[in-house]
């Protein structure tokens, strides 16, 4: 292995204070992302993927808090940095794109100013210089007529254009890591394809690593080199993207891969009943003991009901958390 990873998360635990008690919204979360690498975090709503991202960028706020573990950025622990130090990192070295660009952008400020602000805050530029750079940044995300668009307010732009503005803001300072939390869920499919291509291309050109968070396994596997799957607050499997589709090891991942109708499948095999994952996603307050997937798992045995499975290593730096994996 060459050098320290860009970001390394070790045994991270995130607590949720629900008024009467603290429950672990995520625990035992460990992964690392190398420089320039694309890493995907997949899971359903409530599995803890978004709060993991917020912890990385130092935006976790009560009732959520870090309950344990380490987040290292370039080898240095960052989870307990002062607010001022965190601000230096955030936006500058680690940037984030959110799901809904309309709520993430400031509605009463022209988009050009929101981009220029990045250069003023993090790079010490004058506003005049920053405004010029903002036009360039908009051009780089292929917004037509950027010199006019910088004066527009978010409501004057379409959803796809707003997400381009978000990307321009996020990449303005040339961050080392871009966290994209469901960046295209609010967009139409053809626009989604354009935005994903744009993001991947710009990051590859600048050597920016991407942490892509999504519920869409296909989207993530298409874009990322390695993929981790989260279920009920734990990473249950991590593998290179091709392997996760071709040889998923955890019953949950296998269920996800099998349950979704994929293009071309019907022509080859006819209209077959989809494989279902039984049951429902558990809520944070009622995670089952033992393996949290056990009530829905076709392979569950006695041990799964009482003993949480340990992490088992897989080839190519992969891992799986299951008593009966394979």
């Amino acid at each position, binding site marked *: 292995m060459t050098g320290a990873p860009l970001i390394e998360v070790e045994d991270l635990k995130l607590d949720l204070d629900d008024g009467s008690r603290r429950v672990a919204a995520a625990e035992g979360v460990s992964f690392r992302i190398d420089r320039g690498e694309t890493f995907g975090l997949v899971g359903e709503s409530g599995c803890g993927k978004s709060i993991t991202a917020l912890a990385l960028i130092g935006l976790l706020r009560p009732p959520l808090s870090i309950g344990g573990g380490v987040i290292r950025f370039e080898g240095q622990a960052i989870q307990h940095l002062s607010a001022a130090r965190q601000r230096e990192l955030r936006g500058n070295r680690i940037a984030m794109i959110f799901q809904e660009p309309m709520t993430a952008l400031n509605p009463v400020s022209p988009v050009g100013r929101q981009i220029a602000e990045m250069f003023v805050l993090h790079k010490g530029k004058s506003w005049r210089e920053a405004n010029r750079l903002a036009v360039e940044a908009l051009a780089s995300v292929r917004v037509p007529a950027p010199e006019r668009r910088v004066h527009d307010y978010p409501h004057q732009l379409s959803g*796809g*254009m707003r997400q381009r503005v978000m990307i321009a803001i996020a990449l303005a300072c040339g961050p080392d890591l871009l966290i994209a939390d469901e960046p295209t869920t609010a967009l139409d499919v*053809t626009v989604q394809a354009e935005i994903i291509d744009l993001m991947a291309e710009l990051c590859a050109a600048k050597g920016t690593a991407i942490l892509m968070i999504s519920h869409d*396994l296909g989207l993530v596997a*298409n874009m990322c080199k390695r993929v981790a799957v989260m279920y009920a607050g734990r990473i249950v499997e991590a593998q290179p993207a091709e392997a996760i*589709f071709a040889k998923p090891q955890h019953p949950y991942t296998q269920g996800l891969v099998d349950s979704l109708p*994929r*293009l071309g499948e019907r022509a080859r095999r006819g209209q077959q009943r989809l494989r279902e*994952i039984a049951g429902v996603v558990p809520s944070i307050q009622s995670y089952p003991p033992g393996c949290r997937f056990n009530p829905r798992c076709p392979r569950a045995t006695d041990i799964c009901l009482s003993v949480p499975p340990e992490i088992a290593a897989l080839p190519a730096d992969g891992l799986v958390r299951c008593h009966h994996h394979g």
Partner: protein
Amino acid sequence: MAEPLLSLDDLAVHFKVGSALAGGVHTLKAVDGVTLDVKAGECLGLVGESGCGKSTLALAIMALIAPTRGHIVLDGRDLQQRQRLETARTVQMVFQDPYASLNPRQTVRRTLADPLRIHGVSDKAEVEARVADMLARVGLRPEHADRYPHEFSGGQRQRIGIARALILKPKLVICDEPVSALDVSIRAQIINLLLELKDEMGLAYIMISHDLGVVEHVSDRVAVMYLGRIVEQGHWQEIFEDPRHPYTRALIAAIPDPFHRAAVSARAKAKGEIASALNPPPGCHFHPRCPLKADICVSQDPPLEAIAAGHRAACHFRDRTG
């Protein structure tokens, strides 16, 4: 050939927007000349991006919006000559958001029993029996009847939404994005349920979805809509394996495809975003985004013409493949 269950003839729904005092009144052509059939027992997939008019089309078929032009013939009679209640017994709808589309203050029993009472089933024992039967069909237990919507998970709520749509034994059900609000691991359950019920009860579906994987899996025929018009329609296999409209190809190319299984290459992707229906581009509405654009596309609106029996596309270059 048997009479289609639903037949749309040059259907248009236009809205007046704006005011004469502020910028003038404009016409928004949400649905603009749609001709379409749905046969009994078949599933028609309806795809297109937000703003293309698919939901307005659904509301017009439900008789919840009056068409500006054209006709809707449902089960042999013009929609305008049908009574509201009679239409409701023939066509029902399953909505996208099972959290917003159930009355939070009504028990499941009431949600399912009310339609029966409104439609003249007065015998209590019969109402009770039909509610219990419907709950069993959608995979819920009898004791669920006395619970309220908040006590259920998203997938279970969608089962209740399906039960409500089917309790009157309709012939046609419009499913508007029935799984897109659900957790990924729950979607297969609901898709399987919808297909089972279709066979059991002999239902026809209009399946509105932006998820082409789902549409390919469930549909017998597929219609693709863009800015108020049908741009391509055909048998599901023709649409997915030999798409002739560049927009259909763009939709297929946009699906993440880790195994490269789609019959369309990534080069077919569309540029830019859907135009406003208030001010659609002249000629072919798709031309600003189209990789095949030529002069004729700007000046002439391509008609929806046949390529093969039942397969039609509205493109000047519909004979080009790939």
